[in-house]
């Protein structure tokens, strides 16, 4: 797309969106947000980047093929559930770690890992779909 404004603004905009998506992902446990929303924002960041800068640039920016990201996320989510089996609970029971130096930290848990998995699946799958559709034959 040959819009100068868009091409100038996009790198900054995409970067901000990506950052924001991670923020939304992590705040999701206590305030509105979470893996699904974060993932959608992240996927939009790549979609916009691809529209403005071209598909090749976007593929370089995302480094690995998007569908690989989705697969990794699915694996991560599944593995986060396996952890609880090791502790003797049912599959996917949340496990929490409260380190002595930071007893109030609420991020060291398999639940957050699971949410990260969700995020990666959504980013990967939807960015993958968008890239595939933007590709001209």
């Amino acid at each position, binding site marked *: 797309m040959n819009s100068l404004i868009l091409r100038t603004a996009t790198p900054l905009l995409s970067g901000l969106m990506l950052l924001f998506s991670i923020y939304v992902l992590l705040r999701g446990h206590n305030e509105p947000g979470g893996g699904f929303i974060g993932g959608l924002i992240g*996927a939009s960041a790549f979609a916009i980047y691809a529209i403005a800068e071209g598909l090749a640039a976007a593929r370089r920016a995302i480094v690995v093929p998007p*569908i690989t990201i989705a*697969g990794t996320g699915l694996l991560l989510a599944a593995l986060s559930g396996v952890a609880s089996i090791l502790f003797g609970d049912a599959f996917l029971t949340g496990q929490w770690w409260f380190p002595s130096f930071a007893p109030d930290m609420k991020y060291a848990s398999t639940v957050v890992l699971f949410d990260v998995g969700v995020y990666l699946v959504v980013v990967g799958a939807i960015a993958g779909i968008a890239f595939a559709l933007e590709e001209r034959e």
Partner: protein
Amino acid sequence: MLAATLAPFVLGVCAPLVRRLLGDSVGWALAVLPAGLTIYFAQFLGPIAAGETLTFSTEWVPAAGIALAFYVDGLSLMFALLISFIGTFIVLYAGAYLKGHADLGRFLMFLLMFMGSMLGLVLSDNVVTLFVFWELTSITSFLLIGFNHDKARSRRAALQALVVTGGGGLALLAGLLLMAQAGGSMNLSTLLADGDVLREHPWYLAMLLLVLAGAFTKSAQVPFHFWLPNAMEAPTPVSAYLHSATMVKAGVYLLARMNPGLGGTEIWQVLLMVFGGATLIAGAILALRNTDLKLMLAQTTVASLGLLVFLIGIGTPLALQAAMAYLFAHSMFKGALFMVAGSVDHGTGTRELHRLSGLGRAMPFTAAAGALAALSMSGLPPFFGFIAKEWVYKGTLGGELPMILTAVAILGNALMFAVAFLVGFKPFFGKPGDTPHTPHEGTLGLWAGALTLAVLGLFFGLFSGFAESLFVGPAAIAVAGTPMLVDLYLWGGFKAPVVASIITVALGALFFWQGRRISDWLARVVDALWGPDKGYDQFMDGVVALARGVTGLLQTGLLRRYMLITFLVLAAAVVLPQLFDSIGVTLQAPPVDLLVWSVALLTLGGGLAVMIIRSRLIAIMSMGVMGLGVAFVFLIFGAPDLAFTQLMVETLSVVILALVIARLPVLGRDQRGPARVLRDGIVAVSIGAAMAALLLTITAAPLDIGLSAYFGERSYTEAFGRNIVNVILVDFRALDTLGEIAVVTIAGVAVLGLLAFRRSDPDASGQELIGQDISGRDPAALDPAVRDEAIRDRETTS
């Protein structure tokens, strides 16, 4: 007992292997099992004769009250012994009869499995187990009748037997379950112990008709008698076993078994006597009409089964004794005669009555077996068949029963008398006839069984005390459900039954003398008539026509037609339950809330625009507007997570839709004519109204917030999260979410796959094939050669 029932199945599976190891002597090896079973069952003779009953039970599906329960009384023991004893000789006979046949092992496998099913059927004490074994006999019988599966007639006969008996089996299942429901037990002996509960139950008639449907189809009663003669396509060992002594008697067994529970009522008596009597006469007449030995025997089997049903219908103690005595006698002489017919076929190459005569010299043992069995069948003293026939007349003459019953019995017996002599004597006496092969006696296995069974007919006639105390007596008591005095004897003085016997013999001799003339005359008359066998074909054609009609109506190949039907069913499914629930919906005037009204109108406006607009881009924008409206609804009513997600999804949807739709042709105007607009509009409005009504009903009913409250209480205390929605997603219901992200991943992979397919291999022939319009063409167009030519054509023209 469980092991005894399952052993034939286990050995059956091994039969082909045994055949490979032992070759043609496989029959002798496998016959050891039924012989052993005979001895096993024989040990119960003493206790049962003394009036005991035995039960064996193994849990199967305890939750549903289904147990592998077995029950041994006089009736089941007599059947079990007949099955295993005759089965021993049948296995021997089959080994000799099919010597050298490539599939002998498979045949014996089916035969042994049938034996196990039949044993399970007669010994079952649980209604579900009974049904399972009942169906297993139908299935194994299907396999056996269709053994010569390269012959179209065999296939038709096998399928016909399966359709008729299997259909009856379904009715039986319903009847048995009704009985179990009404009587409060799955246990047959419990149900039958208190028959008045069943007889006085409002469902009695339904149970009775359903059980009778099962019994009548299995035991080939008019009008279901046609499958049995057709089943003669099976190799003779099958006819001798299944179609004389065992499977076809399963229906009789069922009626006898049910007699204490369902029997004794007027409707029971009338139905059994009418159908049994009709079957007796029809079978006997059709037997004289035929000239093929096996077919004649099959038709007399139909007649005999009719007689048994008829006697059970009369239901007096003497009639029940007669039924059991006749059943016992019939199993022996009919099994023997079938084996004789098979041996004659084997030794001469034909079963055609008029070509067979004077075989006695060449086939002495077979001739002896045939003659002895025929004498028993014709009911002449001192054979057991005579006693059975005497008791039949005692049964019909006793009490104040109408004379017509005796007349029916005499006519049927006289016809069978004639057939007995035609089958058992005529082929062996007189001048040697003209047969395809030079007659020769078969090996020991081919005549040993027939001769043994025939001699037993004489033995039990002379020493009727054994039959009375060990078999007929206990069985009759079991059928009646009450103790009775059983006293079988050969000669009881010159009384009415003897007179009836003399009339029978005189009439029978007349029929025998005029056999050929009667047969020819019957052939002219009967063959011209419409019969249920033709009816079966018409019925099957009807079923196929119906299936085609329904398929044509529903499977039109038009996507929108499928959706139309789906939506109509959906609307009905949503609306109908609402009509029957008691939730009253009161429509209150909605409050004047400017925000909600405007958001609702925005959403609706977007939706309507999507429907009306002809420009693709404006349609997509309207879609976005509608999605925005939905996001506002979420935002207003306390769902920020949903609102954000909806916004993101809307944006992305609009983007990808714009990307794809640009490559599709222009939208254009709706092509539907006024009629379709009206019809689709009505369907659409119905669905909409149904959904709105559903939602109003739901919101008018009280809401169970138990689960939501549970999440609210534990979200922070147990899962350390303040955003309850997210905690539900990633913790409480994480397994759901895992499944859902798997779906998202798969959708992504599928999209990539769909798009990559084209790019990597644009000229793949499969692609080209999809590109062609193959609709309306002959399936031959799919032939690879034709297809390749079509592709070449396309390439040259493009």
